[in-house]
């Protein structure tokens, strides 16, 4: 009896996976445990092993195919067995349908921000929401829609006065006249505006500086001197799925958010000493190897609870404040940056944090991470300290509202009671989304965090 091999479902939110490489051919003998093929989601890569021995009777998909999960990918059995019952619909679908499938899966990836987040330990998301019409409920003339796009008006605020509740040009003009989404200073000039403009002010408001900005000239391709034209000076590599996701996420992060970074530093003497002690007593106490980063994660997970706006999701219309901390931990892997989530970090002990973080990082590096662990974070910590970075501007992982960059430690001197003394300082870079959080609250978070770190023993006692 032939056995079909299905595309495994790697996590609840995964709808399809791409076959990256076949290790077997049709007609090849395989033994139980042989690797049949490797595949990846947009976040992780996996290998599928054969669960039976026999002959590969048919491969239904090719490398690069995007295969819906739970679909038969190949069949293993005895030579000559009938495989027709296993032929999946997808194997015969034409390109356009495949395209639709691919779009559907990428849509779902993009729409994750508005979906309920599923996490292993169920949490109740808490958020407030304002009721506004969605796009499908709005009837608007083409002219009005174009004008709205041009001047940056939000059509959902328009009061339709056209026939059949249609928004018409004058309704958008009214929004413009009322100066909705415009700063008071820019209001007068904006009223008479008839050209495309994008608000870069708070919450997308159009500011005077936006009005004054001239249109950025389109960049022209650089002319290459004819003599060197033909020499290939580069290698062109197709983007991996992960790279595409990173590119999309990072670009939308920087283009859509109002990000800025605060830098601070603290006296790391106490946590360094603690780390030494923990290391020395690890075996005796049954502790894992606890790093400075684990200590930081611990401190952040506790301090965040007092700063809701920083442990939140900003969707543009609503802000979701989370009551637990799901800590994204940036991990550098061969495939690119991955950010697994340490769910409910605020409830975990320092030792647990250290163990789980390590496991997550390893899974990422191997590419075996469950995709469900690659989402749902409410805040992210990224650490470039090991690479000697002194300060940077980490990029927020949307729809989170902030990210903490951890820098290297360095020796600094300070004056204490008239004498100069040196100490080990560690600096922190907090990028936050000014749409969701203002500067002072962000700074207060940093202040609380540095105090907690400088008095880590006290925090542990809490």
């Amino acid at each position, binding site marked *: 009896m032939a056995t079909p091999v299905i595309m495994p479902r790697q996590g609840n939110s995964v709808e399809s996976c791409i076959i990256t490489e076949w290790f077997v051919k049709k007609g090849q003998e395989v033994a139980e445990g042989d690797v049949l093929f490797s595949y990846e989601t947009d976040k992780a890569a996996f290998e599928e092993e054969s669960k039976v021995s026999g002959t590969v009777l048919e491969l239904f998909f090719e490398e690069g195919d995007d295969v819906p999960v739970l679909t038969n990918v190949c069949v293993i059995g005895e030579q000559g067995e009938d495989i027709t019952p296993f032929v999946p619909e997808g194997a015969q679908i034409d390109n356009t349908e495949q395209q639709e499938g691919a779009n559907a899966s990428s849509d779902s990836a993009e729409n994750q921000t508005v979906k309920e987040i599923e996490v292993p330990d169920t949490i109740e998301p808490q958020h407030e929401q304002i009721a506004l019409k969605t796009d499908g409920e709005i009837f608007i*003339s*083409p*002219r*009005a829609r*174009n004008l709205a796009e041009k001047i940056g008006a939000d059509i959902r605020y328009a009061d339709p*006065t*056209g*026939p*059949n509740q*249609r928004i*018409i*040009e*004058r309704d958008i003009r009214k929004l413009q006249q009322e100066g909705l989404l415009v700063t008071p200073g820019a209001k007068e000039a904006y009223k008479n505006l008839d050209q495309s403009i994008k608000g870069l002010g708070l919450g997308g408001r159009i500011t005077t500086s936006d009005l004054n900005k001239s249109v950025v000239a389109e960049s022209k391709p650089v002319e290459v001197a004819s003599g060197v034209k033909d020499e290939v000076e580069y290698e062109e590599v197709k983007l991996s799925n992960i790279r595409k996701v990173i590119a999309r996420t990072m670009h939308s992060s920087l283009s859509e958010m109002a990000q800025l970074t605060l830098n601070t530093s603290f006296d790391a003497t106490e946590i360094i000493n603690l780390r030494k002690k923990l290391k020395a007593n690890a075996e005796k106490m049954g502790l894992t190897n606890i790093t400075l980063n684990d200590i930081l994660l611990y401190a952040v997970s506790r301090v965040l609870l007092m700063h809701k706006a920083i442990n939140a999701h900003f969707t543009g219309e609503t802000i979701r404040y989370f009551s637990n901390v799901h800590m994204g931990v940036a991990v550098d892997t061969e495939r690119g940056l991955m950010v697994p989530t340490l769910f409910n970090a605020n409830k975990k002990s320092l030792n647990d944090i250290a163990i789980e973080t390590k496991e997550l990082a390893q899974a990422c590096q191997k590419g075996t991470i469950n995709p469900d662990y690659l989402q749902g974070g409410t805040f992210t910590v990224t650490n470039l300290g090991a690479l000697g970075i002194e300060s940077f501007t980490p990029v927020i992982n949307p729809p989170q509202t902030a990210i903490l960059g951890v820098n290297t430690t360095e020796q600094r001197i300070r004056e204490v009671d008239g004498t100069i003394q040196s100490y080990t300082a560690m600096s922190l870079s907090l990028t936050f989304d000014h749409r969701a959080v203002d500067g002072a609250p962000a700074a207060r978070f940093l202040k609380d965090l540095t105090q907690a770190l400088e008095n880590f023993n006290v925090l542990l006692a809490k």
Partner: protein
Amino acid sequence: MPKSQYVDPVEIRKKGAITFKDIPVNQYDKTIEEEKKNFSTEDLLRIYRDMAIIREFETMMNDIKTMGEYNGVPYNHPGPAHLSIGQEAAAVGQAYLLDIDDFIFGSHRSHGEILAKGLSAINKLPDEELMKIMKDFRDGIILNIVEKRNTSGNVKELAIDFLIYGAMAEIFARETGFQAGLGGSMHAFFTPFGIYPNNAIVGGSADIAVGAALYKKVNRKKGIVIANIGDGALGCGPVWEALCLSAMDQYKKLWEGEYKGGLPFIMNIFNNHYGMGGQTRGETMGYDLLARIGAGVNPEQMHAERIDGYNPLAVIDAIGRKKKLLLKQKDGPVFLDTVTYRYSGHSPSDASSYRSKEEIDTWMEHDPIITFRKQLVDAAVAPDSAFDEIIENARSLVTKTLKLAIDDSVSPRMDLNKDTQAIAKLMFSNQRIEKMEERECEVLMPKEENPQWKRVQKKERFGLDKDGKPVSKNRVYQLRDGLFEAIIDKFYTDPTLVAYGEENRDWGGAFAVYRGLTESLPYQRLFNSPISEGAIVGSAVGYALCGGRPIIELMYADFLGRAGDEVFNQLAKWQAMSAGQLKMPVVLRISVGSKYGAQHSQDWTSLVAHIPGLKCVFPVTPYDAKGLMNSALSGTDPVIFFESQRIYDVGELFHKEGVPEGYYEIPIGEPDIKRDGKDITILTIGATLYRALDAAKILEEKYGLSAEIIDARSIVPFNYEKVIESVKKTGRILLTSDACERGSHLKDMAQTISELAFDYLDAPPVVVGSKNWITPAHELEEFFFPQPEWIIDAIHEKILPLPGHVPTTNFTNQELLRINKLGV
């Protein structure tokens, strides 16, 4: 002047009786022996040869259609083939005495006539002239093909190859055919030999040929014109109209000088006794003997006679006598009943179930191919073997031409992949020709002395005085004056220009546009026609395709139906069907009525716009009327020139400098902005312009909206650029005209605007037309034709709700659904 022709009641009421002369029936009875003094042996053999060539040509067509091959050459011809097998003697006999100045017009069954007339012309023309005709025709495209394969050095033989090939390639829709394949079997012709268009509409050639005869008469051209139609066509109204127009009393009674006399015209009926499946004598008609018809037309009985179309010499005899009658005695027109018989069905799909095999067989025993041959052999004109040779030659001629005509490498079809616009380019000739002929215009006085022209010159050329008040109707230069100035001007420029219609002379047109023309123009340039809308238009088609320029008139748009075929099939299509060989400089004035109820008040512009090949304008101001009439009268395309009876007396309100006294043209196809605005565009066709202006005033005063009003002026062609530009600015457009809303051309325009400016639209384009009802009495017209309030209501309901406006009419979507559901 008809005034001189007193309608005397005493005379009219007097007792009496109408007497008729005998109508000759097959009176020709000469023997070959007797005819030997009129025909050489060569002549007689050539007559037989021409018949044999036609028989072979038609046999080839029949074999191709029914068996898919001829003489071992396979071919599939999906197109039409209405064959004249059996009718050869009639065609050859008719053509025998005709010169290239004598024109024939034919029917769907005219392959034989084309070949007979062509062979006759080839025989008569000197070699140099033949070569010149072949070289000049379409830059020698056909000559090049046949010349390469004919090494005889005999120009006449070459010309026969040319004729047979040109006709055959045309039938097979080859680019190398006479009309580049655009005419086909039923429309082929070759004017250099006097072979004028055949016509796929039964009887279609009748009035066109009358127009050609009119052209010859008015412009003093040589030759006669023959309309060759079938007996079935005598049931067609326009054929009767053509008879009437050809036999008007005025030619002999009112036309003067050398123009006095009947039309050089023969209405020839190739009487094969069947019209489709109906037997004309005995079943579908009542004339018993067809020639009887002539007796009902005029006192001369149209010199009608029946002639034996199964004897070529009888037909030659008749044509000889009639030609003399037409040209020497100027006593046309003539009516001929040329009896003949078709062996094949109406077309190859016709199984001839309506006639007996016995009948066909008996006619075949009379077949002139057999009987005429026997007569010639018996009269020792030539030995029997000579006829075998003629038939064999015909067979090889047709076979070799067939191979050539179906060879795609020699005779390709029009390549619409390579030139996608090949047919589009032929739809209009788009030339500007000030006068169709270079000669003196025949007029009765200098234009400057024409009393009406002098009156018009004294009028106020702008409709408002210095204070902005309207100038009184008596003093203002009116729309009709704009038309008059343009038309009278052309009468003094183009000697071929003629105007005719049902009330043109003396009366000066029902709407007084031609008032004063009678004083300037002799009868032959301006005359009244019978109430024959079909023949008025059809004859204009014939007049124009011969090289003249007519301006004709249908008094009401509602009468278009009466001239349906002539406007929609003939006027519109001949330029393209002739591959550009014919020009159609016809201006057809059509007045859109009001006040006179359902059959005199409908705007039919949309019907005209739908038919490819017609230009269509509808000016509504004096300035536009004069400028567009000047353009129409200087072009080479048919222009349907709509006028509105509501506004013949309107003064010029837009062109501030007033209507220029001198000559100017307004290009056909360019709309005009009559009022600037920024909030909504209103596009009007026709007289609704003035109601749109009233609506604009209300919009401005009551609702603070400024409307931009664009007057389409032209319907086909139409340049949308100005409209789109306006819509981009205003974002809204309403279209209005007096045409009934369903199927109105405005709907087409609205759709085009939606496509071109979708992203700029703040609401769908909305059409306000007349109701889909009959036009009621004048007193109820406000409920039928678009009114200013309708425009406001439609804007309020569908485009831009107007604060405080209370609609008085129903322009809701529910209403739109309801009236469409009911079809009203």
